[in-house]
């Protein structure tokens, strides 16, 4: 890696801590971002000559803060003094560096920065865009490409989201244990949203969007370093690693989805699987199960099977049963039914999903699964009806193509039957 690439990587990894601290000082996101930008410009000038500092984040915080304060002072000569609450602690500018960079703050700084991106008023897509812009530092152009929208539209989406959180109350006091746990839960959910935004992409956008999944994993590792003893963060990181490990096998050469049972398992990324399994081991020692840990355990049972027929479906059924208790949802039951169909047959699985239809009437996977169960039971006419519904509800071209394949097989089978 050359110097500039290394500096770039160092700036990216220092970013959440640096902007988080600057946000605490200035209590204004735009000021914090500008201060960080200014610090980055100076880093690009001085680091190649002098070498990167030992602690890049502290350097950026100091330089960014001083640069922003200079700006405020310069403006204040021409205008009135800035409102007190814009600058939280101007008076301690001269205190020693060690004191100013209070290490104890940094966990809460990063958590706060991530937390403001998951404001409940923001729709999921805005939360993701904002997190990628503010926390990860992706450019608007990169985010726009990942979302398959124009740059101007994405710029507007981010500006709107920022305006919303600027109006909202951003909590700057140090959170208590309960608040901290709540923030952490919201942030974990947001990180998983970022991951899924990348993971659910079709093959046409797979390269760009894989970046989002990788970014989510990076954020999860960051959270884990901040909260080392929290088993649900280990579970979340493990879940994403174990799913992302299968990415190289998820699409065929034509861009069509390859189902888990048809994937070439030799393409799975063994490094990521090893890391995911190690994290589950760590999490299990705490004996405090949670939804992310259970979902990671399910992913692990898939990843551990050398061949599809080696999959421990009974174990997966049990894990989904546990998940149904922790986080009841028709989608969880639907997933459990797939395991049940393998472990105990399609009749039981079909009975399990029948009551879900009202809740999942607009859900592609529901009709896909229903069609598959019906097909296994030999009820081909009903299977075709279900597959037709699935096609009409597909979110991506690849999803639709996959179901059409099933329909084609069905029709071909019927034709062959008629000939016979």
């Amino acid at each position, binding site marked *: 890696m050359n110097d500039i690439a290394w500096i770039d990587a*160092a700036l990216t990894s220092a970013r959440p801590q640096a902007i988080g601290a600057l946000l605490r000082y200035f209590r204004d996101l735009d000021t914090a971002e500008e201060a960080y930008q200014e610090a980055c410009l100076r880093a690009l000038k001085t680091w190649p000559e002098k070498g990167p500092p030992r602690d890049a984040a502290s350097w950026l915080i100091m330089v960014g803060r001083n640069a922003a304060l200079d700006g405020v002072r310069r403006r204040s000569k021409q205008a009135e003094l800035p409102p007190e609450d814009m600058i939280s602690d101007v008076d301690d500018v001269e205190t020693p560096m060690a004191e100013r960079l209070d290490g104890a703050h940094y966990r809460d700084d990063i958590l706060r920065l991530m937390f403001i991106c998951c404001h409940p008023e923001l729709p999921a897509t805005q939360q993701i865009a904002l997190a990628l812009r503010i926390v990860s530092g992706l450019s608007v152009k990169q985010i726009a490409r990942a979302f398959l929208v124009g740059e101007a539209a994405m710029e507007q989406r981010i500006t709107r989201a920022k305006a919303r959180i600027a109006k909202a109350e951003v909590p700057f006091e140090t959170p208590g244990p309960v608040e901290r746990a709540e923030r952490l839960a919201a942030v974990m959910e947001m990180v998983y949203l970022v991951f899924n935004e990348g993971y659910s992409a079709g093959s046409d956008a797979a390269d760009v969007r894989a970046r989002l999944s990788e970014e989510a994993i990076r954020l999860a590792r960051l959270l884990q*370093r901040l909260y080392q003893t929290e088993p649900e963060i280990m579970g979340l990181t493990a879940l994403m690693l174990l799913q992302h490990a299968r990415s190289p096998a998820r699409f065929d050469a034509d861009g069509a989805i390859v189902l888990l049972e048809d994937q070439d398992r030799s393409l799975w990324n063994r490094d990521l699987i090893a890391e995911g399994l190690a*994290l589950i081991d760590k999490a299990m020692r705490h004996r405090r199960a949670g939804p992310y840990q259970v979902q990671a355990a399910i992913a692990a049972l898939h990843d551990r099977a050398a061949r599809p027929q080696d999959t421990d479906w009974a174990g997966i059924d049990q894990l989904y049963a546990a998940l149904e208790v922790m986080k009841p949802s028709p989608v969880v039951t639907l997933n459990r039914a797939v395991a049940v169909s393998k472990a105990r047959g399609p009749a039981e699985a079909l009975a399990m999903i029948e009551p879900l239809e009202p809740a999942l009437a607009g859900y592609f996977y529901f009709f896909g699964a229903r069609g598959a169960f019906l097909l296994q039971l030999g009820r081909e006419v009903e299977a075709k009806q279900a597959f037709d519904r699935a096609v009409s509800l597909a979110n991506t071209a690849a999803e639709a193509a996959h179901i059409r394949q099933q329909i084609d097989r069905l029709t071909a089978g019927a034709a062959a039957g008629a000939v016979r």
Partner: protein
Amino acid sequence: MLYALLCYNSEEVVFSWSKAEDDEVMAKLGAVHSKLAEKGKLGPSLRLLPTTAATTLRKSDPPMVIDGPFAETKEQLLGFYVVDCEDLEEALEIAGDLGRANPGGAYEIRPLRLFVPGTLPEGVGVG
């Protein structure tokens, strides 16, 4: 004389490399490795999973298990083992046995990402 070369770098940076970047570095290293192997100079080499996957066993009485890497600066790295285990529990048991034989300090238990046994000529040893 045998030497151990201990690899240090910023984990956040290295684990943010894309697969292409990682492959490029590994390919460059691979060229160096083969040269060393040809000369019979390369013993075991390995790559660790990130510190987020680490667990630490403090060799106190009773021993204390801590999530995360070994973070103290009072102690220095004095050696290491590579053990083949079913899971973390087994690794902790082994670390516990070793700790009873040699109390004080800690073991950081870190899963491996890559292990290359290497090939030193027979008879090569310390000194």
